[in-house]
């Protein structure tokens, strides 16, 4: 391994799986609770009107939930960066390409 990039990866990946600190079941439950609370808040926006802040608020909550599931339940926090890279590549590519796509259709201005 001579590129520095691969070297660091090797370093972190060669530790055996079992050595990683897996979150405890309790931790998982806490995370699920957090997700449940955010979901409740999301649903609440349907009943309680919060005006123009609605869409930004919903988006933030969505991204937070997404992030939590990916980081904890999908173990990206603890796993190799390579996995994160592929997932992030897919997400970033999808978001940017389809953002342009919708822009060309004048989606944001005409709704």
């Amino acid at each position: 391994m001579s590129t520095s990039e691969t070297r660091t990866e090797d370093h972190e990946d060669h530790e055996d799986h079992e050595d990683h600190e897996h979150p405890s079941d309790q931790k998982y439950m806490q995370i699920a609770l957090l997700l449940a609370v955010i979901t409740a808040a999301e649903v609440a926006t349907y009943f309680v009107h919060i005006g123009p802040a609605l869409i930004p608020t919903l988006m933030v909550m969505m991204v937070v939930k997404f992030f939590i599931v990916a980081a904890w339940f999908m173990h990206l926090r603890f796993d190799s960066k390579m996995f994160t890279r592929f997932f992030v590549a897919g997400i970033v590519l999808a978001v940017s390409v389809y953002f342009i796509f919708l822009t060309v259709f004048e989606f944001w201005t005409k709704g």
Partner: protein
Amino acid sequence: MSEETTTGLSHNKLAMWVFLGSECLLFGALISTYLLYRNKFYDGPAPGDIFDIPFTSVSSFVLLMSSLTMVLALSALQKGDIRNNRLWLLTTALLGAVFIGGQVYEFTTFIREGLGYTTSPFSSAFFTLTGFHGVHVSLGIVMIMSLLISSYRGKLTKKNTETVEIIGLYWHFVDVVWIIIFTVIYLVPNPTS
């Protein structure tokens, strides 16, 4: 993992992540198509007329919790606890099935209320997007059931945690997609007719 690979990562897990990266563009295209057509409801019902937010909230919650049970299943197997592994796998599959049941109910209600697959560009896009997601969930259920079967044949032991982990990745991904769908398709204020 058994094999020494250049990166130290297992082939199977890496392949699953590459696949999930690919899936982002699949669902991205379906969601964008839906967004493009959400107010093209022609003569049929509009999304704002027909979505039942409380109902969908419950089924979204069910799917979200199935992610919890899936990690618990993995965690049990990592500890060599076969019994709890089976229990949580079964729970996950059941929660998935409840979600699918909810979707079937939702679809039939919509059809009864006049929103068929061919009613409008909106309806086609809606059913296609949520249908694709539903098919993904169903495949996940089939995979989890297959895990359970091999567990009862004595083949799912601590050695196979990685298999469970990989199927779990798929399962969480499907959940994450629904997190987006729930917000973008259901919760964002929808046009009414």
